[in-house]
């Protein structure tokens, strides 16, 4: 199982058109990726490094089906990502954004936000649920993410930075995905919180046999956290370490 590829990206190419200012005519093509291929093995982490503007975010968008590539294919858990319906896709792959606090609707209490997600989990897996089962599930998730029960009655603005990040991760974990894409998850946090979150990500990885794609621009962080590193360069070239 360990050697199994959970995600395979095969000869992916993507370019954007550059338009002239005045007449909006296409004057050039900016190549983001040219024949990009890599694999993410089961229960490992792949770091994606690169300067700003090289296409780190474009890569996430393509892998998570927000954008279409020009050519190439992506195999997720043995199946082309185009063949998944969106509901099934959500149980396979989840994203944690740089500013994960924006995932939390400021108008609702945390309990409501978690409840909605848990209901979604039961619906996606065609399981029956009632109030009791949902509450049990919520308690279980709180225990995993080491959050106190008091957060349930709080609004997002009443939580500390670390707690907000944990709630965001709880929402993602509640669907039990196989891959989590972490897009610079630590850059908005203090150094002491960063260490706490890194330990937490590693714990979750072991517990749920997760695979991570870790987008960062910090080489030290990538070397600490990841098993393999994909370095993207300007103009579509890349290297894998």
């Amino acid at each position, binding site marked *: 199982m360990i050697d199994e590829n959970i995600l395979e990206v095969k000869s992916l190419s993507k370019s954007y058109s550059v338009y002239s200012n005045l007449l909006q005519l296409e004057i050039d093509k900016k190549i983001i990726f040219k024949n990009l291929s890599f694999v993410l093995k089961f229960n490992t982490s792949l770091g994606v490094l690169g300067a700003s503007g090289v296409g780190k975010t474009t890569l996430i968008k393509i892998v998570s089906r927000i954008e279409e590539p020009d050519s190439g294919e992506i195999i997720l858990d043995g199946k082309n990502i185009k063949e998944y319906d969106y509901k099934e896709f959500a149980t396979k792959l989840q994203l944690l954004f740089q500013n994960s606090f924006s995932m939390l609707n400021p108008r609702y209490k945390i309990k409501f936000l978690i409840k909605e997600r848990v209901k979604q989990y039961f619906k996606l897996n065609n399981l029956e649920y009632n109030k009791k089962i949902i509450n049990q599930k919520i308690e279980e998730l709180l225990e995993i993410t080491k959050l106190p029960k008091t957060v349930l009655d709080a609004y997002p603005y009443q939580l500390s930075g670390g707690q907000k990040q944990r709630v965001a991760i709880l929402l993602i974990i509640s669907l039990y995905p196989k891959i989590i894409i972490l897009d610079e998850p630590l850059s908005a946090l203090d150094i002491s919180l*960063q260490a706490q979150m890194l*330990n937490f990500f590693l714990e979750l990885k072991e517990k749920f046999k997760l695979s991570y794609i870790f987008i960062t621009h910090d080489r030290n962080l990538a070397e600490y956290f990841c098993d393999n590193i994909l370095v993207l360069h300007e103009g579509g070239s890349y290297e894998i370490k």
Partner: protein
Amino acid sequence: MTENTILKIENLNVSFKLNKKIFYILRDININIHKKEKIAIVGESGCGKTTLANTILLLNDEVITDYSGNLEFFSTKGCCKKNKYELIKQHKFLSKDEIKHIRGNHISIIFQDPFNALNPVVAVGKQIDEVILNHHKEYNKKEVYNSTIKLLEMVNLKEPELVYKKYPHQLSGGQIQRICIAIAIANKPEIIIADEPTTALDADLKDSILKMLKDLVDKETSALVLITHDISIIKNYVDYIFILYLGEIIEAGKTIQVFENPLHPYTQFLLSCYVDATKKGKKLPTLPYDPINLYDKNFIFKKCIFLNRCSKKIKKCETLKPEVFKIESQKVKCWLYE
């Protein structure tokens, strides 16, 4: 205090009154800043770094803020009648013009978020012009334009004439931060406060911005107060470090000494939780519990502020607030060094 002192902060306390509670944000702050000196104030978010910067410029909301202690600024420019401003004692009596004269002319600030620091509907060159004109009313249009172009060149922006006409949205993050730095140094202030100048920028830009800031400060003979939460980035850029934890300076000293021999358990923790390949597979150190509330009067004035998270605490920490102990040139607020 020596002749070279330009800013003297003595026993400064700042508190905010919010929702009928008093939050003791800064307590017993003592900092002396000398000419051409570069210092860094390091601490987690919520520890009062930005409040300290705002206090120096009297930018806190006067309705909710209470000050005590001394905050004195010694002008060396020779452009004003007074050589000494007692900012805290007198701030209620300083006229608006006087405060305006100090801000930007004697002490300037680079704010945390460069994207929100500029006016989106005014060309960036015009915004620099405005800062120069505010303090040099005798300049004519051409003189102002020329000084702005010179400033843009100083902050390493290519084609300054073109950049002059651009609007903030047409520039990248690094370029906008350079514009903010140009605004800060426009009137050759004696003190430049940089409040997390690199937080909103990419890692590859951080070093170049800090290096440029250091070179400019050296060139213009200003003093620099660098405020940051990232202790790792400042090593090569400042002479002194002040570690702030929940509104108190718990350790201060020369940069090299603090890095080589951190004394306070919190500083030791800060320096130990940096990651690199050598720590792979090992668990990183973390602090237990959350920081205490800043309105908990019984705790913050009677016990060590780091007590609930400290791994080296002794009995005395629970009953008495630690004094400041001097070890060589380092100062530390911890009973372990009694």
